[in-house]
């Protein structure tokens, strides 16, 4: 339940590192309230990011229950949805991110790719 407080904050940054803009990953996780799926998704995301993108990522959590108007911007339908804003192209991963391999595929983080 660590994520709970951070949900209402708009931005949660990973370990702050002065990385170049090019390398920076901006990820948005859309959720609607503290549902089990949302928490699972956040936990999974955090784990993956810390493993694979150490120091060069930021995660923004958007709770549509609080800011419903933000849903349209990234064409959010399914929840939870993870949007990779940077690097381009924009990618979307829906679901609770429990399938790590698919998440890595979705984020283009598979070794060799």
């Amino acid at each position: 339940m660590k994520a709970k407080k951070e949900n209402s904050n708009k931005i949660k940054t990973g370990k702050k590192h002065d990385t170049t803009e090019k390398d920076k990953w901006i990820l948005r996780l859309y959720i609607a309230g503290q549902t089990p799926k949302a928490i699972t998704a956040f936990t999974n995301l955090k784990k993956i990011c810390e493993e694979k993108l150490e120091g060069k990522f930021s995660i923004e959590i958007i709770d549509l229950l609080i800011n419903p108007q933000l849903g349209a911007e990234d064409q959010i339908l399914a929840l939870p949805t993870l949007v990779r804003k940077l690097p381009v192209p924009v990618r979307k991963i829906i679901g609770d991110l429990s399938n790590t391999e698919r998440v890595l595929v979705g984020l283009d983080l598979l070794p060799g790719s």
Partner: protein
Amino acid sequence: MKKAEHKTFNKDLLKSPTGIQGFDEITAGGLPTGRPTLVCGGAGCGKTLFGMEFLVRGATQFDEPGVFMSFEETNEELIKNVASLGFDLVGLIRNKKIAVDHVQIERSEIEETGEYDLEGLFIRLGYAIDTIGAKRVVLDTIESLFAGLPNQLILRAELRRLFHWLKDKGVTAIITGERGDETLTRQGLEEYVSDCVIMLDHRVTEQTSTRRLRVVKYRGSMHGTNEYPFLIDENGFSVLPITSLGLKHIVSNKRISSGITALDNMLEGKGYYRGSTVLISGTAGVGKTSIAAHFTEAACKRGERVLFFCFEESPNQLMRNMLSIGINLEPWVRKGLLQFQATRPTFYGLEMHLAVTHKIVNIFKPDIVILDPINTFIVGDKESEVKTMIMRIVDFLKANQITALFTSLTSNDSPIESSDVGISSLIDTWILLRDIELSGERNRGIYVLKSRGMANSNQIREFILTNHGVELREVYIGASGVLTGSARIAQEALENAEVLTRKHDIEQKKRELERKRNALDTKIASLHADFELEESEAVKIIETEMEMIKRLEQDKMEMAVSRKAAVKNGKNNKLKK
């Protein structure tokens, strides 16, 4: 939050009028309030437009804001598309009457990992609804989700939830869906939306396409079950509830002139009934359109509005041709009393013609409608269908108290009374023009075949097109049939000659008589003269005699004096002497 009206068990189902012309009549009020309605049909049949018009009319006419959630077109595309129909979507969006949300799902952008739901869609929709206080929602076309989201199980469960959620929200919703092969919609949405299903269709028969609408089901309400043709034009949708009319027209006793005095005279001297249906039938070139033009001109002169459908000639050609018989229709067109509507019958299907007729009549609101000619519709269509269509037009016009004049072309070989699209039973006044071929000429005859509710003339009159319009002449009916044209003129000359001869005879007789009288008079005069002669002679003799007697008397007296005899004996003395 809106009241969930559908939950109240009213005797009558609450309905939200769509404002779409004709549709509310078919459904007796519109779509079920607070419930979702499925509108399905093939590509390009007008689903999106139906939904959009439902929202726009709702927002502008019924003060019910609406949310349009588009899964196919972007907001900009939508705005452009409906602008062509005269809907100012931008203004409505600015005034918070309508909210448009484009939901885009790009399959290639989406990776599925683990469990999810469509709460995002719910939130967006809910947000849009709450922002403008929407009472109407359109989801167009939600089936696109099936292409974007791989997990059908989740999707179906979520859709079911969505429709329940819409009901709970109390919004009147339209969900559009593409038609599937066997089912109403490709993804079987009818499973979820079961209150009201409307099917749109775009069918091509004989190279002409007709849009049709059918209410497949409407839970808890009566509705028209037929397929109704509908029309999408610059004013949006219009549906035609054509067969819902009963025979309950208001009937007028007023009469209006046909524009031809002699023809009026054949109809009790008053012309047609207002609101009646007049058929002018005849073979090619007998002057059907001319009679129609006369009627048109007369009506315009009375200040009535005339709608003239021409299916064979262009308006300009028709006006030029009518000038040759001295009818100038152009000023009336400029004054706005006369409107021509020229289309080829093959331009669209029958229903479409009907729809167009309805629409134009409703806009122009004419007193008189002329269809010239009606039977060109038969091309490529069955007669029975044409009859149905004409019947619908007749009913429609009658219901609106509009006098209708149809012309109909009959072919020379078919019996003249039977070939008129079988619509004779619908016609109130039927005027027949026919060719009379006689002694190397082709002349026109006109007669009133029937005219309901009046004592019409049974005469066949000869019908002549002059440069000042149509004229009717008496025809001669002789041993060899009806005499027209030069035969009639010859007959007229013959009769004139006969009259002349008679006159001569009479003159002669008169003179003879005069002569005889004169002779008699002369005779009488001479007799008189003779008599006078005799008389005067006789008088003379008598006078002489009288003189004689006097003299004798005198002599006697003188003698007596001389003899101094008594007068008494005088006589004897005289004798003795």
